[in-house]
């Protein structure tokens, strides 16, 4: 009798582990750092990690929505570069220097509109022209960064503009502005997914697109909307990177971000087949990837090894997911 009880507890333990693999991993990393990383439990460590993780988290949330519809968006890094290249062009222009406040406002608004338009393009390709998402978004993945580099002649644009830099260096209650921004976006997206018909359709399309269409759902519109949200969030992340650095580097801004974002979404519990949109999971995934990078770097391990560790985490995350499906 006692045998079966322990079997049952063992089984449910395993289920708990699977259900909350991300949280377990996070606790494990924190425990490791407590023991080995010098000066880990300080406010400044929190500050550094939040400021570094915010952009990945923001892009990963958009990616989670796209993945929830069974799609994927490879163009997020290129959209970051494009938005990031536009902003300094606007506030450094004659108009921008003549009207500094309006210049900064436009330098945030216009790149976001362009990013939205990129998302619209992706969405139309996928939803209306039925191009496979991986190919549809490959177009902007290749050309978006090219456009950004043409706009700037490939030059690194440097600037000093405290108002604009607030996006990346501002502090609220001692913590980075972009961290609060990421949390605010997460709350909004969570409500959208759980409380609106749009959110229901996102999950329905990912679960069974044919069924969603046959039941009269606005499949195309919802898909386009999802890619637009993802594009806009990528644009915002691009602006943040530029603001932190006081420089826009079209060649590097957002480079390999698509992979980080997909990894964060998957680690956070998104299913690549679609049908799940764990928004806070995406943040958790981004935090885990960030903390692993931080831990290895702070302990003097080469950056290249960190890449291998990242791949290992994705492998484990996918394994846990597969097990959960069965």
């Amino acid at each position, binding site marked *: 009798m006692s045998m079966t009880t322990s079997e049952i507890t063992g089984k449910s333990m395993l289920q708990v582990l699977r259900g909350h693999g991300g949280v377990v991993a996070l606790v494990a990393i924190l425990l490791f750092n407590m023991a080995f990383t010098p000066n880990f439990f300080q406010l400044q460590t929190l500050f550094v990690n939040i400021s570094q993780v915010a952009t990945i988290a923001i892009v990963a949330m958009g990616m989670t929505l796209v993945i929830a519809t069974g799609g994927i968006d490879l163009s997020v890094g290129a959209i970051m570069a494009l938005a990031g290249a536009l902003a300094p062009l606007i506030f450094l222009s004659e108009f921008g220097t003549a009207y500094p406040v309006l210049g900064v406002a436009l330098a945030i608004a216009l790149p976001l509109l362009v990013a939205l338009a990129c998302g619209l393009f992706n969405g139309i390709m996928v939803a209306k022209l039925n191009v496979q998402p991986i190919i549809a978004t490959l177009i902007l993945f290749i050309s978006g960064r090219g456009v950004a580099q043409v706009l700037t002649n490939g030059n690194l644009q440097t600037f000093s503009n405290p108002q604009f830099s607030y996006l990346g260096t501002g502090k609220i209650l001692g913590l980075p502005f972009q961290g609060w921004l990421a949390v605010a976006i997460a709350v909004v997206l969570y409500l959208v997914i759980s409380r609106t018909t749009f959110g229901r359709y996102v999950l329905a399309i990912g679960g069974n697109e044919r069924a969603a269409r046959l039941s009269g759902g606005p499949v195309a519109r919802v898909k386009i909307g999802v890619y637009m949200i993802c594009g806009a969030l990528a644009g915002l992340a691009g602006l943040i990177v530029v603001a932190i650095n006081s420089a826009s580097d079209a060649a*590097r801004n957002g480079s390999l971000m698509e992979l980080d974002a997909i990894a964060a979404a998957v680690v956070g519990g998104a299913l690549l087949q679609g049908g799940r949109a764990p928004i806070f999971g995406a943040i958790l995934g981004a935090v885990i990837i960030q903390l692993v990078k931080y831990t290895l770097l702070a302990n003097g391990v080469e950056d290249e090894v960190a890449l291998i560790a990242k791949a290992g985490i994705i492998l484990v995350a996918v394994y846990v997911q597969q097990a959960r499906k069965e």
Partner: protein
Amino acid sequence: MKRRNILLSATMIGLGFASAAFADGLPPLAQKDTYRVGFAQMESNNPWRIAESKSFVDTAESCGWELIATDAAGSAAKQVADVESMIAQGIDVLFLPPREEKPLIPAVKRAQAAGIPTFLVDRSVDPNAAVAGVDFVAFLGSDFIKQGQQVAEWTIANFKGEKGVIVELEGTTGSSPANDRRSGFDDAIAADPRFEIVASQTGDFARDMGRQVMETLLQAHPDVNIVYAHNDEMAIGAIQALELAGRKPGEDVMIVSIDGTRDALQAIIDGKMGVTVESSPFFGPLACETMKRYAAGETIEPWVQVSDRIFTVENAADHIDEAY
């Protein structure tokens, strides 16, 4: 067979013009008013490369060059193809910054076989496979090891504290400037027992990554008081990281670096940075001068060294207008 005969006869004709330079196998260069010159740039995604390309374009007119410039956009394969297309276009001289040490060797040898004197600029090829003075005329470039040494010497002379705790931000892993700037600095700084390098990590020559790595290393080693970056972009990133963490670069942390970009000179003027050793991208005038010496029949030294200046608070303001 026929083609080989043509090549052979071309070589025979070439031999007729044999000069001092040709004796060791290098193709000769006639003295003319104008030359068709090929410049096969590797990529244009950073200020340094852009300044280098511009320097060649700016020199073209004064040196009588009809310049054919290409951009391989970061691909060694495209750079080889670019050189082949230049050979087909009948250039007289080739200036080539080989992106990688081995893949560009066929391009160098093909230009040589086509009778085109080739000068390597700012990076070289694998010395085991192609030798200056035999397979190409000469290498024009800086001494990366010396740049690292100069930074170390300046640091030793100007560091006032008792113990120097150094964080090193390395360039792209495996690239020759990163390897040489590290060994030059590390060997020279080891001579003074006051200094210790507590962490050395790559920032990939980029500002954003330099900043992120510095933020992390600063948390792990808060007692750091010297940052050595392999280029100015990473140094600027490190300054931003230090300022975000409430430190005062230039006062409680000494920043030393290499390149001499405009932003770095401004940081020196603002008192945030100690020194930057120049790694000049302005190769145009040197290329012109070396080519003319070669055309005049001089034997060119295998390594034409670029004299790099040292920028500190004493001279930064004088040079910022010419910086890139």
